[in-house]
């Protein structure tokens, strides 16, 4: 008899589990008869990418709330099933295998970073499931001829700064810059952007007078600035992550050289960390490209901002907006197809344009997006969207850039 003294407790526990299982099956759905539609994703909620991973999760969560408030997807409530891959490539693969084969989720959303999305998307492709990822801009993502992957941002790295290149190349001949300099950090997210601009400006006849790569831990930009000063470029395009962007501006001010136009990849998108770093007066006229802007007048963008503010407080990170947009893409395709047929969903995405808070998105046959990032510019101490015109928050573009200090 001693053997069975835990039996009553075990039975109670079993009963509770069954009850919990039943309630979770019937709960959630407004109608009661339809099961919730489960969207599975694995995100780096711990480890190296935990900060952007958490931001992506928030973007997904805001989308879930908004969809469910509006009656769900295919008349079913949406339930997110998000697991943590600890920023690890092996874990992300086993996560998506489990989501697909054991949890049998209805739809998939991607992970954060190309590093994790490259192996994870192979799992989805093998299972024939549509895979929309919020951040997977590496060229390696698109050279595998996959049919079911979609990168839900406006452009891959090479095309991020297209609007800037077009703007400069399109200036009237007498104003158009004649020379350009291209310093860039040795970084997979900045180098392709700078190379993209360089090839377009060279094609427009703008001569390259300086083009050098500096390592990630460069802390002193005085010599680089003095070199650039000697080359006297009209346009300066820097592949800057953050400190290097601030460092070069400071050194250019010290060296007393101000180009006619200046573009930096991501450094100027860091709000007041950037303006405090270089001095607000020195930000005037600096261009940068972003996938999303809180100010852009795209449909649902303001609703997204408000919902985020209500749920998480503060202004959303770019990664949260990218996560939300990825979910919007999936939602649009499922609604248009009217079923969960993954082949049809992928086909539809290959042939249609989707409105998102990042702007309209469409894809080529490899799943690479075909638009350009928003072009933003610092004007009078604030970041403004200047192109494309229909969503611009400022009607003017500062050109030529005034001297440092705004004079």
């Amino acid at each position, binding site marked *: 008899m001693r053997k069975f003294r835990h039996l009553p407790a075990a039975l109670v526990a079993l009963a509770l589990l069954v009850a919990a299982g039943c309630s979770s099956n019937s709960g959630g759905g407004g109608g009661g008869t339809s099961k919730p539609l489960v969207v599975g994703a694995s995100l780096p909620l711990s480890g190296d990418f935990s900060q952007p991973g958490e931001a992506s999760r928030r973007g997904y969560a805001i989308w879930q709330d908004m969809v469910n408030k509006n009656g769900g997807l295919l008349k079913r409530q949406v339930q997110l099933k998000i697991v943590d891959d600890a920023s690890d490539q092996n874990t992300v693969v086993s996560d998506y295998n489990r989501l697909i084969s054991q949890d049998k989720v209805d739809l998939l959303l991607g992970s954060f970073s190309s590093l994790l999305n490259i192996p994870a998307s192979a799992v989805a492709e093998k299972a024939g499931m549509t895979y929309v990822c919020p951040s997977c801009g590496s060229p390696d993502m698109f050279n595998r001829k996959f049919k079911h992957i979609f990168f839900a941002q406006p452009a891959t790295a090479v095309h991020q700064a297209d609007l800037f290149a077009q703007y400069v190349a399109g200036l009237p001949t007498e104003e158009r810059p004649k020379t350009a300099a291209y310093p860039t950090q040795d970084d997979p997210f900045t180098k392709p952007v700078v190379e993209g601009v360089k090839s377009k400006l060279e094609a427009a006849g703008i001569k390259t007078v300086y083009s050098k790569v*500096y390592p990630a831990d460069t802390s*002193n930009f*005085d010599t680089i600035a*003095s070199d650039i000063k000697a080359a006297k470029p009209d346009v300066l395009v820097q592949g800057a992550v953050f*400190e290097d962007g601030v460092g070069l501006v400071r050194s250019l001010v*010290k060296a007393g050289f101000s180009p006619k136009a200046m573009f930096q990849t991501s450094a100027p998108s860091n709000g007041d960390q950037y303006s405090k770093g*270089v*001095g607000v007066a*020195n930000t005037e006229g600096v261009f940068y490209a972003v996938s999303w802007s809180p100010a852009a007048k795209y449909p649902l963008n303001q609703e997204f901002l408000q919902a985020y503010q209500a749920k998480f407080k503060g202004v959303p990170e770019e990664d949260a907006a990218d996560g939300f947009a990825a979910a919007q893409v999936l939602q649009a395709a499922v609604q248009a197809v009217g079923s969960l047929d993954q082949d049809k969903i992928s086909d539809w995405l290959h042939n249609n344009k989707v409105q998102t808070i990042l702007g309209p998105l469409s894809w080529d046959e490899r799943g690479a997006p075909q638009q350009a990032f928003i072009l933003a510019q610092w004007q009078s101490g604030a970041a403004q969207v200047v192109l494309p015109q229909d969503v611009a928050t400022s009607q003017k573009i500062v050109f030529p850039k005034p001297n440092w200090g705004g004079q």
Partner: protein
Amino acid sequence: MKLAQTVLLGLLTGGVYALLASGLTLVFGVMRIINVAQGALLILAALFTFEIWRRTGLDPLLAIVVTTPLMFGIGWLLYRGLLARVRAAPEAMTVLLTFALAIAIEGIMGLVWRNVFRSVTPSYFASSFHVGGLFLPKGLAAGCLTAAVVLGLLYLALTRTWTGRAIRASAENMQGAQLVGVRVVDVAALTFAIGIATTGAGGSILSILQPFFPASHYVWISKLLGIIVLGGMGSLPGAVIGALLLGVAENVTSAYVSPRWSLVVFYVVIMVVLLVRPQGIAGSRLREDVVA
């Protein structure tokens, strides 16, 4: 002209590097402690400067009179609380302990000041003196001058005061110093505290030269270790020579070859020097077998 500008910038940068490396080499010379946390303490001092500057508007270079005693106190407490316990342990233990300390300090800085970049920008942070076609960044010049003053004071204290002599005696021969009546344990605590106090001035200068955040210390500790290995571990003049060499090598390579090669060249110089002079430029060869 280009060469003059490049070398000038290199020497100014090197002067600041010298101050940053001085505490590290002093502590190693006296105590055989490789203080991996030196970089983290440097960033901590920079954050203190930031806090003082943000709250009171005090010039960051004047903030040195606050940050130096503050860092001295922190150094003394760290030695008494932690490092004194591994005094008899092998040198590798001190590396482990100070590495753990560096990570702990980084974590605390992240909690208190968050993981965002901070910048200290007094009116002169991005302006220069222009002399005959050359430019001389004001922040860098002021930083280099301050570094020279602090280093000069440190050198005088080490060579002209009894405490300084006791420190040097302990560095050269610990048992001998003990025999003539130097209280080596107290001298060690004092030296460690002085070594950390140099980060007070260093951090304040660094804060106006570039933006920084808690994890910035990794870049600095690797540079500083390189400098003192090149100059001769434990030698103060060696640290100055090593630092000026790094400053000039970085800038000249960056201007004439490519910024990409600037650090590589510095480490190649270290390798060549160590092949010819294993004790570094100004280091002295010790009979480790009998001293131990």
